[in-house]
């Protein structure tokens, strides 16, 4: 077997630990490194911002409405004189939290469906793939709007205005984005389950669950991580779109999309109000997408770079 023969001397010289090899590959993607730094700064600012910038998000000040950036208000103020920096820090927490949580939902659902479809050899696999294809052809934004329209009030009553909408948005965005993950996982499972090491585990008496959890899943994780990263960006866009249409979080919750929605009627007199949150969404999304691209270079072992 391949593992018994010694690697050739030239190959031995270039062997790194897997983690170092991954970092070496990731580093070659310059924009991905820059993006990682940018995203780190953004996350730090959003998480620790409120401890440094102690201005309340809903202090109304009619003497300072629609002001441009100044020392007192670095990002300016809105039509009620509320400080935009404070509102953006607050909104960023929600946007990033929604992105992460929705990604978790889509990755968990996608991995479950993909693993089931990849392991079953009968009707179950075909049925699940039909379901995946059906979901892929659903019009996502209209359905998202429809679901929020129908379930908004019920969840608001059960979990409070912000909590209810958060749960709803996360579940719905995650629930409509699991299909690519499921397809990837299924494709990986179909090839991995026939490999010798899985056969060896099977011969040693490993139960199907143990084969999946200990042997197949860890090897299928690379593409899932990449897809998950890009899902965070897609979920941030989806949440901002909902808020921008005025159908996301309640009006007094300043998510980035909501800030843009409020700002769009004042574009001619105070452009800064729209530009700062829009730029924040753009930076977060582009950084996450570039990180996903860098991870593809780092984790896809077949690609030689």
């Amino acid at each position, binding site marked *: 077997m391949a593992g018994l023969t010694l690697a050739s001397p030239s190959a031995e010289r270039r062997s790194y630990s897997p983690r170092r090899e991954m970092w070496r590959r990731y580093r070659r993607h310059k924009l991905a490194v820059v993006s990682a730094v940018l995203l780190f700064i953004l996350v730090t600012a959003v998480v620790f911002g409120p401890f440094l910038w102690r201005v309340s998000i809903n202090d109304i000040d009619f003497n300072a409405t629609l002001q441009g950036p100044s020392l007192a208000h670095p990002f300016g103020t809105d039509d009620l004189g509320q400080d935009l920096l404070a509102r953006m820090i607050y909104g960023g927490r929600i946007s990033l939290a929604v992105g992460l949580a929705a990604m978790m939902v889509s990755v968990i659902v996608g991995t479950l469906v993909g693993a089931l479809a990849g392991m079953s050899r009968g009707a179950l696999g075909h049925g699940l793939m039909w379901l995946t294809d059906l979901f892929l052809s659903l019009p996502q934004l*209209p359905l998202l709007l*429809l679901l929020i329209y129908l379930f908004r009030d019920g969840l608001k009553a059960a979990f409070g205005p912000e909590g209810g909408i958060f749960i709803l948005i996360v579940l719905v965005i995650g629930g409509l984005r699991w299909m690519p993950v499921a397809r990837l996982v299924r494709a990986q499972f179909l090839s991995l389950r026939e490999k010798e090491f899985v056969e060896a585990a099977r011969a040693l008496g490993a139960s199907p669950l143990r084969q999946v959890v200990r042997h197949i899943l860890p090897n299928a994780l690379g593409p899932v991580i990449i897809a998950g990263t890009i899902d965070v960006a897609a979920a941030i866009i989806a949440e901002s779109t909902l808020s921008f249409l005025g159908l996301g979080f309640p009006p007094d919750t300043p998510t980035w999309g909501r800030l843009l929605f409020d700002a769009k009627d004042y574009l001619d007199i105070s452009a800064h109000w729209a530009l700062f949150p829009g730029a924040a969404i753009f930076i977060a999304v582009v950084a996450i997408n570039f990180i996903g*691209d860098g991870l593809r270079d780092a984790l896809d072992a077949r690609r030689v770079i």
Partner: protein
Amino acid sequence: MRQYILRRLLIAVPSLLGISLVLFTVLALAPGDPFSDLATNPNVPPEVGLALRAKFGLDDPIYLRYFHWLAAMAHGDWGFSFVSRVNVDTLILQRLPTTLYVIGSAQLIALLIAIPVGVYAATRPYSIFDQIANTFAFIGFSLPTFFTGILFILIFSIKLDWLPFVYSTDLNGTGLARLGEQIRQAIMPVMVLALFQAASMTRFVRSAMLDVIRLDYVTTARAKGLGQRRVIVTHVMRNAMIPVVTLIALQIPAVFGGAIVTEQIFRIPGIGSLLISSILSNDTPVVMAVTFVFACLVVFFNLIADVLYGWLDPRISLR
């Protein structure tokens, strides 16, 4: 070929049924029902409310309600808008052409940008042009449509004052002037959608071209002495377009999502803005019908993609 198209049509039916089932389940699971207002309204006697419920079959078992609803949808009996006081199908038919016009021209422009750029980038991989195109494509699909729309309004309407930012249906003037105005007001919404689509399409085209361009038959074509243009256009592109069609078909739901946003920003009277306004005014029959129309459009465009697929790759239609 005809048989292939027929078979595709037959495959589209179950997926439409599946989508209708999903929509109906969503509606049936939703808390509250359309007649809850009647129960609390003191002017409506309870027996009238009950009679209405019986008439609309709200107390029937759920599978019967699904078949009733499906039969009504298939007959074109889509209900009555609570707000505009017209039949839902008239309302949608009024607005559908605008949406199709905006989406169609956006797709066309996106293809006109993406195919040349993607093909040129793939013939010179890792060149400066390729790297710039790649970076722009990345930025393009990371910019959400609502932000591009706002940026366009800021630059072209407010700062430069070149283009109108509100789309109007009753333009005055006649003949050429009117046509010019029509085009001028559509530029921004169409470009917002087109650039977003072109960004991801460019990446698809480039990677599909790169997959094909290294194959042996391309080397053979070159060895026969064919010119670069001929090799790329007739030998490489036709095969490279096959996966591109699939990927574009997978993007179609996202296109409709983008259309809803642009219609909302530029106040285009299409079915996307109809959806938003009827959600805001709790007009359930319109919301359901528009969502269903969007689903039908997705299935229909997938069907077109399948037909194109069969034309590009005759082996598929023979199977």
